[in-house]
C-alpha cells in the first residue's frame, strides 16, 4: 500500500517527521519498506499484511497512527450534500443476499466528463494511478482515501424495467461472459458476482466494471456505487480470471461494512465540487444482510499469561479503546472495520501488545530441559557426513530438481518421475529420482579441479515415495578406507562403487573416469551412531572470499621443509601472499629420510583466480615465484623439483 505523507496529514495532525513515522509504523506492525519522492510528494510503500484490509487506505493508516500516538480519531472533512429528488430511478435486486450484503449508491445527474484538476491528478499519480477523467479519478481517489471501492456506471447505458434502471446482482452461471472496461471478453467462472439488466451482464462486480456500462465522454448521468461484496466470491473469480485490481484486492481482504455511505458521500461531494452543475440524487442504502457482531470476552490474566506481561485490566481496556474497540468490563467489540480479523481473545492480546510495544514485553527463561537422546536418528546423517569429511570428501548440495535431458541419458525417465506443474523456469520441472544425476553435474562443473571426491545426502522422489539417499562420486579409484566405510554402513547389503559408463561421461563432457555409489538411507544400519557422538562444529569462523566467474588456474608446488612446521600454517602463509590465491590445498604430506633428518615433503594445490579475466601464464608464474621465495625465507624450505 502506498501512502502519500501529506495526504495522511490532511486527516490527522501529528508532529513526527516522515522518517520517524516510518520507523514507528514498522514497529507497530506495518513495515514501511521504502520512502520515495514522487510528484514532489513523500510516498511510503507499506507492507500491509493480508489480515489488515482496513489499512488499505489513507484513513485506515491515519487510524493506526492516531492509536499509536494516542491522538484523537482522524477526521475527514465532509461537506453537506444538497440532494434533490430526481426523476431518474434505479431498482436493485440481490439474490442471494449474502453475495452483496450492502448496496449503497447515488444517482448523479447532469455530469460533464472532463480532465481532473491538477491537484487530483498529482495525488493519483503519487499513489500510482494513471488519471483518466474526473469521474473515474474521483472514484479512485476516494477509494484510496477511505478504502471503499467505488464504481460509476453510465446511467443511460443500463436497460430499464418499468421507469427504473435495473441492477440485478446475482452469481454467474456456466458459460456466461462479460466484456470488461479494458475491452476484454471474459468467460466467467460459475458463481462470480455480476450485475445485469434484462438483456445482458454489464458488470464484473468488485473486480472490474463492464465495457457496456462504462463512463465515456458523452456520459450525462451516473450511478455511483459503493457496495459490499462477499470476499470469498471475489477472490475465487479474481484468481480464476487471473485479474487482480485495486478493488478486488480490497474486497478480498474485507471492506468495512459501515464505510459505504462515507465513500459514496465523499465521492458525491467531490464530484459536485468539480462539476458545479451536477445534481446529486438521494442516497440509496440497502442493507440486505447485517454482519453478526458479538462481543469478545477476555480476561486480564489470560492476556498477561500469553504475553508474559503484568498489565492491569485498566491498561488492557485503554489499549483496546485507543484502537476503536468498545470495551465494557471484560468484553470488547471491535470497530466495524476490524470485524474481518478480530475474532478471539488472542487477537485482542496482540492488539494490546502492539499498543504497549513488543519491545516492552519482559523476557522469560525456558525451563531447563535436556533431551539430546531423542535427536539420535537425525545424528545418523551428521555422523555419516563427519566420517566422509574425515576421509577427504567434500559435501555438495544440489537442487531437488533435475533436467529431463540427464534423466533420459541415465535411463531414469519414466512414469514414476514427479513433475511440477507451471514451473517458473524449465529447470524446476522434474524432481530427482536419485542423486546420481545431480552429482554428475557437479563433477562436470568442477572440471578444472585436480581431483574430485564429493558426496551429497538428500531427498529423492518418485510418485510412490520420498526417501533419503547418500551419493558419493570421485575421479580416483576408491580407496580401501572408503570401501570399508561403505560396507560398514550396512551389514546386510553389499554396496559397491561402480564406474560411470563412458557414453554418459562423454555426453556430460566429463573427461576422466568417475566412480560412484548410491545408498538409500532406509538400508543404513541405525546403530552405527554411538550414543556419545556429537556432530563436530566449526572451530573457526570462515569469511568467504568471492569466486571469479572465470575458471581458476590450479598449480601444484611441493616443498621440503622441517617436519615441525604444520602444513596448515604454511598453507596460510601462501594464501596471504596474493589476493588472487583463493585456495591452498594440502594434498600430500610425508616424512622421508631422503630429504634429510627431520624433514618432510608437503605438496599443495594452489588455486588462483582473477575476478576480471582468465589468468595469464606469466601472471601465474610471478605468483608461484613469490610463493617459493616466501616459503623458502620463512620456513627455510626448498622446492621439490623445479617450477615448470
Amino acid at each position, binding site marked *: 500500500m502506498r501512502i502519500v505523507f501529506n495526504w495522511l496529514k490532511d486527516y490527522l495532525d501529528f508532529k513526527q517527521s516522515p522518517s520517524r513515522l516510518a520507523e514507528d509504523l514498522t514497529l507497530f506492525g506495518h513495515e514501511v519498506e521504502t520512502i520515495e519522492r514522487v510528484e514532489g510528494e513523500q510516498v511510503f510503500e507499506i507492507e500491509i499484511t493480508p489480515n489488515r484490509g482496513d489499512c488499505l487506505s489513507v484513513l485506515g493508516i491515519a487510524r493506526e497512527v492516531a492509536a499509536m500516538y494516542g491522538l484523537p480519531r482522524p477526521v475527514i472533512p465532509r461537506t453537506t450534500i444538497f440532494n434533490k429528488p430526481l426523476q431518474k430511478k434505479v431498482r436493485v435486486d440481490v439474490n442471494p443476499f449474502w453475495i452483496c450484503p450492502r448496496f449503497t449508491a447515488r444517482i448523479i445527474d447532469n455530469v460533464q466528463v472532463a480532465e481532473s484538476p491538477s491537484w487530483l491528478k498529482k495525488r493519483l499519480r503519487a499513489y500510482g494511478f494513471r488519471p483518466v477523467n474526473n469521474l473515474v479519478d474521483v472514484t479512485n481517489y476516494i477509494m484510496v482515501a477511505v478504502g471503499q471501492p467505488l464504481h460509476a456506471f453510465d446511467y443511460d447505458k443500463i436497460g430499464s424495467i418499468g421507469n427504473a434502471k435495473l441492477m440485478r446482482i446475482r452469481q454467474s452461471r456456466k458459460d456466461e461472459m462479460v466484456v470488461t472496461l479494458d475491452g476484454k471478453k471474459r468467460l466467467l467462472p460459475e458463481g462470480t458476482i455480476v450485475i445485469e439488466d434484462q438483456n445482458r451482464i454489464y458488470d464484473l462486480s468488485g473486480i472490474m466494471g463492464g465495457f457496456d456500462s462504462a463512463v465515456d465522454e458523452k456520459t450525462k448521468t451516473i450511478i455511483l456505487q459503493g457496495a459490499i461484496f462477499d470476499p470469498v466470491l471475489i477472490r475465487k473469480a479474481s484468481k480464476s480470471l487471473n485479474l487482480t485490481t485495486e478493488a478486488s484486492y480490497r474486497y478480498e481482504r474485507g471492506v468495512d461494512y459501515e464505510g459505504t455511505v462515507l465513500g459514496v458521500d465523499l465521492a458525491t461531494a467531490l464530484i459536485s465540487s468539480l462539476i458545479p452543475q451536477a445534481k446529486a440524487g438521494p442516497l440509496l442504502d440497502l442493507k440486505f444482510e447485517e454482519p453478526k457482531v458479538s462481543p469478545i470476552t477476555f480476561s486480564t490474566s489470560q492476556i498477561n499469561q500469553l504475553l508474559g506481561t503484568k498489565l492491569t485490566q485498566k491498561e488492557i481496556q485503554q489499549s483496546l479503546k485507543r484502537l476503536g474497540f468498545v470495551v465494557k468490563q471484560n468484553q470488547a467489540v471491535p470497530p466495524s472495520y476490524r470485524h474481518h480479523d478480530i475474532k478471539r481473545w*488472542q487477537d485482542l492480546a496482540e492488539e494490546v501488545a502492539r499498543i504497549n510495544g513488543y519491545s516492552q514485553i519482559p523476557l522469560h527463561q*525456558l525451563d531447563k530441559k535436556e533431551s539430546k537422546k531423542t535427536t539420535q536418528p537425525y545424528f545418523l546423517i551428521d555422523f555419516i557426513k563427519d566420517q566422509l569429511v574425515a576421509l577427504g570428501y567434500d559435501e555438495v548440495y544440489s537442487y531437488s530438481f533435475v533436467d529431463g535431458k540427464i534423466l533420459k541419458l541415465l535411463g531414469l525417465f519414466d512414469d514414476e518421475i514427479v513433475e511440477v506443474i507451471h514451473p517458473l523456469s524449465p529447470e524446476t520441472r522434474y524432481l530427482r529420482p536419485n542423486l546420481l544425476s545431480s552429482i554428475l553435474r557437479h563433477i562436470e562443473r568442477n572440471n578444472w579441479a585436480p581431483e574430485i571426491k564429493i558426496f551429497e545426502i538428500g531427498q529423492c522422489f518418485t510418485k510412490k515415495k520420498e526417501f533419503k539417499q547418500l551419493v558419493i562420486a570421485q575421479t580416483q579409484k576408491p580407496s580401501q578406507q572408503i570401501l570399508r566405510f561403505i560396507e560398514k554402513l550396512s551389514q546386510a547389503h553389499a554396496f559397491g562403487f561402480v564406474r560411470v559408463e563412458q557414453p554418459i561421461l562423454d555426453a556430460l563432457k566429463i573427461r576422466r573416469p568417475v566412480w560412484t555409489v548410491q545408498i538409500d538411507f532406509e538400508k543404513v544400519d541405525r546403530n552405527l551412531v554411538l550414543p556419545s557422538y556429537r556432530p563436530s562444529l*566449526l572451530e573457526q569462523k570462515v569469511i568467504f572470499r568471492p569466486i571469479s566467474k572465470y575458471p581458476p588456474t590450479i598449480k601444484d608446488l611441493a616443498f621440503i621443509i622441517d617436519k615441525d612446521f604444520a602444513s596448515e600454517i604454511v598453507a596460510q602463509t601462501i594464501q596471504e601472499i596474493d589476493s588472487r590465491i583463493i585456495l591452498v590445498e594440502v594434498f600430500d604430506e610425508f616424512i622421508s629420510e631422503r630429504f634429510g633428518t627431520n624433514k618432510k615433503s608437503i605438496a599443495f594445490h594452489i588455486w588462483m583466480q582473477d575476478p576480471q579475466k582468465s589468468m595469464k601464464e606469466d601472471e601465474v608464474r610471478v605468483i608461484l615465484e613469490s610463493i617459493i621465495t616466501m616459503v623458502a625465507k620463512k620456513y627455510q624450505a626448498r622446492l621439490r623439483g623445479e617450477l615448470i
Partner: protein
Amino acid sequence: MKGTLHPLSQFIRLSLDYFERQGFVVVEGPEIETEWFDFDALNVPKTHPSRDVQDTFWTNDGRVLRTHTTASDVRIVLENRLKPPFRLIVPGRCFRNEATDPFHNHTFYQIDGIAVEKGLNMGHLINLLKGYIESLFGSSVRIRVRPHFYPFVEPGMDMDFFLENRGWREVLGAGMAHPVVLQNMKINPNQWQGIMWGLGVDRLMMEYFKIDDIRLPYTGDLRFIKQFK
C-alpha cells in the same frame, strides 16, 4: 586430507546445537507435502489472501513442495501422537516458485521450532530467539521485535537484527501457536500454550560467512565449498 562439510550443513549444525541445548529435539518432515499440512492445518484457508503470500510449486499429483518447514509441525505431532509438553525443531529444505537472483532462490532451508508447554508466553519466545541470534553474531548485536501476521500464530511477530551499512534485516517470523493449529494437533488450546518460529537459514548463513550470492551453495563449485574447512 580432510574434506569439507558444506557451509549450509555447518550453519544448520550451529543453529541446531543452540536449540538442542535448550532442550529441543530435532525431527524431519517430507519435502513434498499435502496441501492440508502446508496450508489448511496451519489456519491458511484457500479462501483467504494469506494463501497468496507464497508462490507454491504444485506437483502433477496435487501435492505441494513445502513452502515452509512449518508444514511438518502438525504432521510430526499427529504421526508420532505427541502429547505436550514437547519441544521440537525441524530443519529442512523448502521451495517457492519464484525467479532467482543473488538474494532470492526457489530452494532454501528453514529451521522451524515449536514448543508446547504450560505457561509459555511471548517473553519466552523472544528470549529464546534473541539468544539464538546472539549465539551466532555476538551479544552486542542489536535486535528488535515487531508485530507481524502469520495465520498460524497469534500474536505474531518478526525479529530483525541490525547490520552496519545495511540497516535492519528480518531474520525470522514467530509467535504464539494459534488455537486452530493447536486444535489440529489435537491439543487443547485452553490448557496449553505454544511458541513457534521459522527462520530462513540461507540468508542468515550469507550474513554469517559474508557470502554474496544466495545461489552459490547449490552450484557444487569446489572453489566455494573448499573455503569452509
